[in-house]
């Protein structure tokens, strides 16, 4: 907890800094007249066409799902990499490598299957 206290303090300071900048900008900023045209969404000056909440390609969702799977698999490698040197020093290098080889085989199979099933094709 004491290790994370400075992080919280810094986050609060940075947020205050940002809010202060925005406050100053609203204080010194020009006070123009607001019109409907000015407040409309910016689309290069032409009339606003469609609403932003139209259909969004499902690919983005699929990418996010695949990211979660692979990212968790990669995070599992971090403790392994951290302990690797100690295991080798203790003469147990073969065992920890073997365990990881099984894990990596599943990882590579998953990646290969994902590419093969055209989950990552953007057209």
């Amino acid at each position, binding site marked *: 907890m004491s*290790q994370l206290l400075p992080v919280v303090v810094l986050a609060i300071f940075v*947020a205050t800094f940002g809010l202060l900048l925005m406050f100053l900008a609203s204080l010194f900023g020009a006070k123009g007249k607001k019109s*409907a045209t000015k407040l*409309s969404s910016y689309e290069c000056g032409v009339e606003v066409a469609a609403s932003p909440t139209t259909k969004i390609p499902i690919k983005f969702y699929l990418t996010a799902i695949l990211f979660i799977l692979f990212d968790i698999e990669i995070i599992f*490698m971090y403790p392994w990499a951290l302990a690797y040197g100690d295991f080798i020093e203790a003469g147990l290098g073969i065992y920890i490598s073997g365990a990881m080889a099984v894990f990596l085989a599943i990882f590579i199979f998953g990646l290969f299957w994902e590419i093969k099933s055209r989950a990552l094709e953007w057209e």
Partner: protein
Amino acid sequence: MGSDIFEVSVNFLKMIVIFLMMVQLVPLLVWVERRGSAFIQNRLGPNRVGPLGLMQLLADAVKFLTKEEFVPAKGYRFLFYTAPVIALIPAALAFGAIPLSAPIRVEAFEWLGRNWGPYTFAFQSYEIGIGIVFVLGASSLAAYALLLAGYGSNNKYSLFGALRASAQTISYELALGLSLVGVLLLFNSFQFSEIVAQQAGPMSFQFLGKQVTVPFLPNWGFFYQPLGAVLLFTAFFAESNRLPFDLPEAEGELVAGYHTEYGGFKMNMFYIGEYGHMMVASALMTTFYFGGYTIYPWLTQESVSSWFSQFTPTQASLLTALVLHLVFMAKVLLFLWIFVWVRWTLPRFRYDQLMDLGWKTMLPWALGNTIVTAIVILIMRTNWSGQ
């Protein structure tokens, strides 16, 4: 944050100074970017306001302050105003965890009729045991700012920019995380100070269980992990949404992407976030692959502190830390210049090419790098002769 009032206040000041230093570097980098692009494209660039156009930065800040503040009628007011503030936080938090120089040792002294015990101040905002994981976690929070900005603006260009940005950031996060496994295998530590300390001496590694030393080369991670370094640096370009991966703000298709509706200081805060990300990326490259704040034969912690041997230990430690900080910043600025250089040299990718590069090229290469590193380390470090 410390045991007594002196330590707490120094730690707090240190945190704020490092953050303000980061913010101050942003206008300077914008100037470098504009002058650099002009240099590359054979133009002059901003050169009218002040010497070399340096006062342009101040003029820009005044202009940002005097811009009119308004929320588009369709936008969500709360999200619209929170997004730029959130854009500032991840880069600042990540930058604070990276050591920028050697720690400063303050010997015990007497002041105001009290004894103040010896202190050690790390040259970073805070030391966290799981440094690498913390920096990765904090800097990937930046995707939230982009999504909030895109959603809060309620403009279809903003929303598409935000979607592209988040999909791209998470795709390259994989290659980024995986290329770091090689660094972890090499140094077996999550702590930046430990990683820098291991790179301080001459090149020295185990060859089939025997220690080999190459006296004329520094022990930098780059010599062991060249492919990992290239992959990591490429992934950082995508993470900070810089050209050639700046699809989120491809102005030919999306006006300006997620910050289409933003102006004035709010837009500037997104820029501070982006440049802050570049600084974090450069600092990480320096720390992991290029020896952190030391350059082995000439500028190591021992050789620099021997310059200041006639001072008191506290002063010598302070001066050493400052010199080593300049060494670190020189390396960081070199990487930042590469960011600018690449931006004005390479064209933009198409979106499917970008995703293909991330998933089908960089991820398998990073995986191969991990496997080869693990096998080589296993063969080299195992004591084959027994006992």
